[in-house]
């Protein structure tokens, strides 16, 4: 999997994120979502077949998270840290380049 383009942000937040409790438990540094991963409760995961992909970007547009970004050749890249396995991308894909498969360890 390609490296997340947010790597620098993640490192910055991890460094700056205060462990101290604020009044009202306010998160004073924005971007805590880059350290709190939300893809852990996924049951099905999208599996991508590059050969079938026509680079229409529908998956990229429809991903509600958004956990899909595009690589240098404009092929979709799935960020499994945040993908919740909703299957919208697979449903929208006109060429069946994305199929949902059961998540296995």
């Amino acid at each position, binding site marked *: 999997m390609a490296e997340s383009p947010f790597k620098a942000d993640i490192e910055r937040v991890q460094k700056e994120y205060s462990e101290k*409790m*604020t*009044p*009202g*438990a*306010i*998160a*004073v540094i*924005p971007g*805590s979502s880059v350290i709190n991963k939300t893809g852990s409760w996924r049951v099905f995961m999208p599996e991508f077949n590059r050969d079938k992909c026509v680079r229409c970007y529908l998956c990229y547009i429809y991903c509600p998270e958004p956990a899909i970004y595009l690589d240098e050749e404009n092929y979709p890249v799935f960020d499994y840290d945040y993908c919740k396995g909703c299957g919208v991308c697979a449903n929208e894909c006109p060429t069946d380049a994305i199929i949902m498969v059961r998540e296995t360890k």
Partner: protein
Amino acid sequence: MPIRKVMKANEAAAWAAKLAKPKVIAAFPITPSTLVPEKISEFVADGELDAEFIKVESEHSAISACVGASAAGVRTFTATASQGLALMHEILFIAAGMRLPIVIAVGNRALSAPINIWNDWQDTISERDTGWLQFYAENNQEALDLILIAYKVAENEKVLLPAMVGFDAFILTHTVEPVEIPDQELVDEFLGEYEPKYAYLDPARPVTQGTLAFPAHYMEARYTVWEANENARKVIDEAFAEFEKKFGRKYQKIEEYRTDDAEIIFVTMGSLAGTVKEYVDHLREQGIKVGVAKMTVYRPFPIEEVRALAKKAKVLALLEKNVTFSVGGALFQDFSRALINESEKPKIVDFILGLGGRDVTFKDLDEALAIAQKALNGEAVDEVNWIGLRKEIL
């Protein structure tokens, strides 16, 4: 110069809100506090109060709007009673947990069923564990003053907790009394502008409020609410002292009346304190050593003051307009907690009376006194006694 006007406690609460200059008021009318938002909407419509008045479709929305506005960083106000306060219940926890200094005026009213619009304290008492500060007014003047004090305490940096001020349904809400309306300039000096330190919206300083907390953080977040409640004890004393200096009216967490040589001290809250003061005067004429202690502040519970009070009396007779089922009244629970580890403690006898607007008369108080005197003489009495109960229809 402060002006004196004859008004109901509802109007006094509206005046207090006007003087405090909240920027957002969201309220849903409910008996007996309907007049509070009505009066405030008049102030806003007439241009006397520069605020956004949000008409909402329920109390749940009213407090939610206040939470939103307060989280954005402005002073907010609302009023409610009874089922309305109960409908706010889940958001009350959120307001306290998010440390938003919202102030609510509550016309203390009984809870259904059966439906009853008259006075007891069950509504606010039921919200005692939400983290909110609680004040109880004896008369219309106190309703006005305590709302101003509530803002002062709530917005203190060491506290930052929401506060509710209760005044008895109909006994105060709809009864006219002369009320002194303090000068706007003095109130401005007393309260100052609300400047939120943490909870406010600013695009240049993005924060997340009302966050999710995993088990690793939730307990600490709750502890900070506990800590803020503890801090409030001192801050309330300071606010009372400053209020007295500025406006000349003295408040104490527990106001004592003729307690110095009293053997029996009646403890009560709200407007009932006025009745019991009269009653005590009447008993003193007969040479009976009794006194009254009025709880002006119920949350944070004034533990030290209760312990000091307990040293003065042989019997503490708690007069309560609320029920905590299978225990007695809420005060009974709190007094027991405050005194349980004291080496010398008075007898505590609990009286439940005046529920749902039932008049508390001298005859009822005689009944309570007789039981308290039995306890004083060392005779066995019930710990919890329902006074004025019509046994013949049970």
